[in-house]
């Protein structure tokens, strides 16, 4: 039986979560998914909670999804973007966040380009921290919504074969997925040019290859990753055209599979590079399901973490 309490006080990464935590988040998300399909999609649970979304990196989906999740739970929401902030005047991260906490904020949702930033903030700030992506390290809410979307379609993931294809080296989504799918007992294969695979990646309990067609024949679902050009000035492959020819998902390669393989993508999609439009919009793709489930998963994360926050003392 699933315990009804998370083992953690922050969501810093999937590697800190137990299998019970994962199942609790999925169960709670399924209730919230029902709620966000009602005519009125709001519940009053978090009306006494204030949440700050601090995004030190660009984001569309994650930022909107978190904000919507917070508003659906009736929390008060403030948003911060790097551009136009006092960071450009030389203020450091801890000072910036301390000032925001001083405004009686209960939960911080943090996206930052530095790996480990969420952990660092959690150790130096007395507040609940949710990691919305820390550099190339982890993106736990994306990992959770990917797995939830897979479970919806495939059922229990134990023994299921999941492939992750693309820029594994720079992808925080890949690492969160590896930790999570491993905990749930799935088999994981990474497929990428050798230059985009981290050294000793097999030590995380995965196999690695550079053969996309055979990977597709092997798997039940494939998660296509974007090439993260913004994280490096160095070229890891000769050209997008060559990458696309060898590692891009297109109809010609997909037709060789001869079985139903689910297609996931964390977005944003570079159509024609890692996946062609006809497959991204095909019946096999569950990309928009992922987006919908993202709101439910984030509502579950926030609700479960908020339920552990200390109640203010009304005895004054």
């Amino acid at each position, binding site marked *: 039986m699933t315990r*009804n309490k998370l083992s953690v006080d922050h969501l810093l990464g999937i590697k800190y979560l137990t299998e019970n935590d994962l199942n609790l988040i999925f169960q709670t998300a399924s*209730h919230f998914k*029902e709620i966000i399909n009602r005519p009125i999609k709001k*519940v*009053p649970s978090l009306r006494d909670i204030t949440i700050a979304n601090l995004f030190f990196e660009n984001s569309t989906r994650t930022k909107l999804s978190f904000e919507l999740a917070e508003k659906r739970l009736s929390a008060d929401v403030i948003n911060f973007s790097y551009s136009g902030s006092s960071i450009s005047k030389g203020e450091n991260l801890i000072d910036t966040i301390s000032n925001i906490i001083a405004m009686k904020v209960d939960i911080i949702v943090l996206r930052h380009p530095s790996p480990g930033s969420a952990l660092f903030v959690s150790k130096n700030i007395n507040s609940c921290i949710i990691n919305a992506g820390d550099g190339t390290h982890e993106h736990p809410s994306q990992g959770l919504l990917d797995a939830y979307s897979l479970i919806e379609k495939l059922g229990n993931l134990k023994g299921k074969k999941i492939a992750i294809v693309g820029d594994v080296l720079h992808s925080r989504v890949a690492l969160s997925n590896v930790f999570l799918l491993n905990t749930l007992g799935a088999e994981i294969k990474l497929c990428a040019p050798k230059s985009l695979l981290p050294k000793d990646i097999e030590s995380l309990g995965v196999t690695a290859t550079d053969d996309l067609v055979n990977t597709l024949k092997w798997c039940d679902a494939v998660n296509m990753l974007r090439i993260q050009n913004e994280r490096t000035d160095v070229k890891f492959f000769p050209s997008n055209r060559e990458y696309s020819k060898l590692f891009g998902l297109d109809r010609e390669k997909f037709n060789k599979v001869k079985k139903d393989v689910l297609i996931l993508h964390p977005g944003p999609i570079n159509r024609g590079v890692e996946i062609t439009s006809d497959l991204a919009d095909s019946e096999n793709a569950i990309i928009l399901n992922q987006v919908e489930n993202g709101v439910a998963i984030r509502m579950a994360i926030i609700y479960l973490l908020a339920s552990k926050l200390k109640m203010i003392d009304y005895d004054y």
Partner: protein
Amino acid sequence: MVRKTLLSQQKFETILNRLACQLIEKHKDFQNTVLIGLQPRGIYLLNRLISILEESYGIKNISHGKLDVTFFRDDFRRAETILSPKSTKMDVIVENKLVVLIDDVLYTGRSIRAALTAIDSFGRPNEIELLVLIDRRFSRHLPIQPDYLGTQIDAIQGDKVKVQWNKNGIENIVYIEEK
């Protein structure tokens, strides 16, 4: 802990039949009525009433749903244990309908208040009524009263009033666990 039976199987069945008849008096063929059981234990009462209405009175196709009010409760972060939701299944239209909320025990009234807020998420009913099997009178925190009532009991704060539903040959009974 002392356990005392408040309603025997026979009296229990009599009350369920009376409640079904009272519903028929007001709602007739139930064409404009939706019965909503509150999770978790109001669902047992809902199912029993529907089966009585169908089998004893031939009223078929009664619109009904089950509603969980966890996310609408007023004790989030105040209760000793973390609130765990149950499933909601509301494949019914409540807009402009007569809604009857159904629960087994009415105690403080806070769950019913949460249910009144929760039901708004699905539309605006013309009227909402409340049916309960047991009313723990003198223990209300809010001005909420049932429209259909099985029986009233007096129990002091801390006592637990429980409805045991027929399962695996066990009889339907209502009992009290005294402190």
